[in-house]
């Protein structure tokens, strides 16, 4: 059954490559809004699902790309473990393959690492329909180029992900979220200060003049850190962080475009009109703004970062920050190496890829 599915995907890819007809890879569809408009004949991959191996004491899980994230997280919770990068599920139905292809991570990212940091290996089909495996199921592996991580966040433009091995982490024994009133500038300074001291911080967020910080670890350590940081304890903390992670918080609602700015964490501003929500110790700023794309991107550039038009994009501005010419040329050659016919998720990331 599994082999037959792979064969079927491979044949679809080969036929599309021969005909130079673009394919649009689709898992759970929870991130259809993300990136440039998907185009091409649909290649549904969510039927290729199921956990293949899970070894809690080896800290490794391997699953097929169509496996719902919820299923993986439930299996891990049973063993007292979790995905360390706290991936967003958005409207629900998110799959492992989509999670890795989009490369998006949640509130814990600044403190535990991103999805790419946890990817140990992949099995994939390239743009010729060739079945390839890179990396593996072990923590340390420097044999060959790190294609697994290259694939992470490439939005399906380099290959169809079939299976992924991820490093797992233990669930913290204790968790606590504190909250206090702070203006944004002070909140960002506090976040950076905490990150520079040995405190068990696992998430930070500033929204609507309030600063939230999540502590996790041994109970004694969490309590001691809470005494140092101060503020009032948040009761429905799990729900609060889930709403930030999945963008269900009221901040993300409305008709205004939502921008994602990834910046130097200490950067001031950015000086753009519109409400902001700060995460990741200051390194991630969500911005709701109708301002001109060039203006927003220049502001991000000034802070050594980049700006993504995340939701409700206009048709004229691309979703992703334009690359310098030399870097774009290199991207095109990498795309050419993996997908010579240029059929996989064409245009989803950049029009030239």
């Amino acid at each position, binding site marked *: 059954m599994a082999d037959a599915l792979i064969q079927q995907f491979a044949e679809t890819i080969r036929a599309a490559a021969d005909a130079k007809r673009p394919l649009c890879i689709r898992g759970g569809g929870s991130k259809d809004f993300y990136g440039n408009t998907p185009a091409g004949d649909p290649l549904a991959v969510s039927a290729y699902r199921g956990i293949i191996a899970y070894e809690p*004491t080896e800290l490794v899980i391997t699953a097929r790309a169509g496996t719902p994230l919820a299923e993986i997280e439930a299996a891990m919770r049973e063993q007292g473990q979790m995905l360390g990068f706290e991936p967003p599920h958005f409207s629900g139905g998110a799959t492992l393959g989509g999670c890795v292809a989009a490369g998006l991570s949640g509130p814990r990212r600044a403190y535990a690492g991103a999805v790419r*940091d946890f990817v140990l290996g992949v099995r994939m089909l390239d743009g010729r329909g060739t079945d390839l495996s890179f990396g593996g199921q072990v923590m340390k592996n*420097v044999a060959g180029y*790190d294609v697994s991580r290259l694939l992470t966040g490439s939005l399906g433009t380099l290959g169809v992900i079939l299976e992924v091995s991820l490093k797992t982490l233990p669930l913290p024994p204790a968790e606590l979220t504190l909250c206090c009133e702070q203006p944004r500038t002070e909140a960002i300074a506090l976040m950076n200060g905490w990150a520079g001291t040995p405190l068990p911080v696992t998430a930070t967020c500033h929204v609507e003049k309030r600063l939230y910080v999540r502590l996790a670890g041994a109970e004694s350590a969490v309590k001691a850190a809470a005494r140092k940081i101060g503020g009032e304890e948040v009761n429905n903390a799990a729900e609060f962080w889930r709403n930030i992670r999945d963008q269900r918080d009221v901040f993300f609602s409305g008709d205004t475009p939502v921008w994602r700015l*990834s910046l130097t964490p200490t950067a001031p501003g950015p000086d753009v009109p519109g409400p902001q929500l700060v995460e990741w110790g200051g390194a991630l700023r969500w911005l709701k703004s109708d301002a001109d794309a060039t203006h927003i991107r220049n502001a991000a550039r000034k802070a*050594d970062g*980049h700006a993504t038009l995340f939701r409700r994009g206009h048709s004229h501005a691309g979703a*992703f920050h334009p*690359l310098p010419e030399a870097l774009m040329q290199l991207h095109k050659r990498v795309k050419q190496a993996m997908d010579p016919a240029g059929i996989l998720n064409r245009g989803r990331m950049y029009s030239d890829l």
Partner: protein
Amino acid sequence: MNAPVQTIPVDYERQRAVCAALRAFMPEHSVLFEREDVTPYECDGLSAYRQVPMVVTLPENEQQVCEILEACCLMRVPVVARGAGTGLSGGALPMGNGVLLSLARLMNILDIDPAARTARVQPGVRNLAISEAAAPLGLYYAPDPSSQIACSIGGNVAENSGGVHCLKYGLTVHNILKLRVATIEGEIIEIGGGGLDAAGYDLLALMTGSEGLLGVVTEITVKLLPRPESARVVLAAFDDVATAGQAVANVIAAGIIPAGMEMMDQPAILAVEPFVHAGYPTDAAGILLCESDGTHEEVADEIRRIEDIMTASGAHLVRTSHDEAERLKFWAGRKAAFPAVGRLSPDYYCMDGTIPRKRLAEVLRGIAAMEKKYALRCANVFHAGDGNLHPLILYDANDPGQLERTEAFGAEILKLCIDVGGTITGEHGVGVEKIDSMCIQFRSAELETFHALKHAFDEHGLLNPGKAVPTLHRCAEFGRMHVHAGAEKFPELPRF
């Protein structure tokens, strides 16, 4: 080590032409070609492989790096980049018809940003120098390969170096934010950024561990972490290594990610103890060193749980460091393992496979059987937390045939690592050393993908050619030789 030296005759005309081209923009003292000047660069940390480079050049800034690459690209001269030359897989082995590009003079820490917790450094900066410079700010650079007093950060990026703390703190790839890279055409590209991710493909990950085949790193922005408040280490001794392996699994199963988790087998303990007096029990079949770091409360809590788990897992001795001096003493033995083994034997050969930890006992039994087969001794040290095994094969290069037996022994260990679901290299890289083992780990389709990616960065194949990724032709030859006999025929012939 008195290993065979590869030599190809110097093409003096070519050498003169390359030197003249480089001296057009480089000071005379930064372009070396006299035999006695270039011989010190004939090998890296893997001294079994040697080749005197045609030309050595030592740029002092990024612009010179670019100009050198541009010139070499135009003349189609292969370029091998070199940091501190401490690599263990021959990744910086020069080419007799090529330029060795030493980054040793790019050794400035350009900037430390205490608030954003980053350091911007040149590639020749020593790994430990970054942590030393950041120490007054209460910060450090986490990856700590054993060679950290000497190895350069540029080399760390090229090899994706780890260290004893990488289960908790990650490898180089997890601890860098941004690179400036000179392409073979001599153009600078910036990869990554000041934030935690960048637009486009994750070329930062692709560059890290690419062994100098894709570009030359001219500047690195690394993450700095706050120095933990406290660190303590538990020493536990076991009657057999399988029990010790199970104890490691039990620690992980209890939800603990130790800051370091190291295992040594009895031959390694017996080599180390008389040399370092670390207090290791010499009657143990294996010992574990398990470190906890963090806040005082975290460490107190975790150490208590680790002690309980070790005892419950069957350790016959459990001791915990009480102060920093004792912690360092416990670690001194592990850190001296390589030189201590070096005292027992004229030469030793360090392997670097990674295995799923649950297969440890089986792999160690396999290695013990190989000791008999090849009539060579082997001591094992093991980054137990992440499954990275360093068997140290003892041999004497002056005894004819021993080096060949050692290499065959090593190759068989690597094959065993692949067979149990692991990899041929956890942190030392493929280089020239493990190039044939790549033919076992990967199929032609994956190797072709690697070559296609290489081509995307380096159309003419001038950056460190012949390393890291074998040609399909070489694998075909290797496969045939593998079937027919042990030793390679015509070892003096280059095999591309």
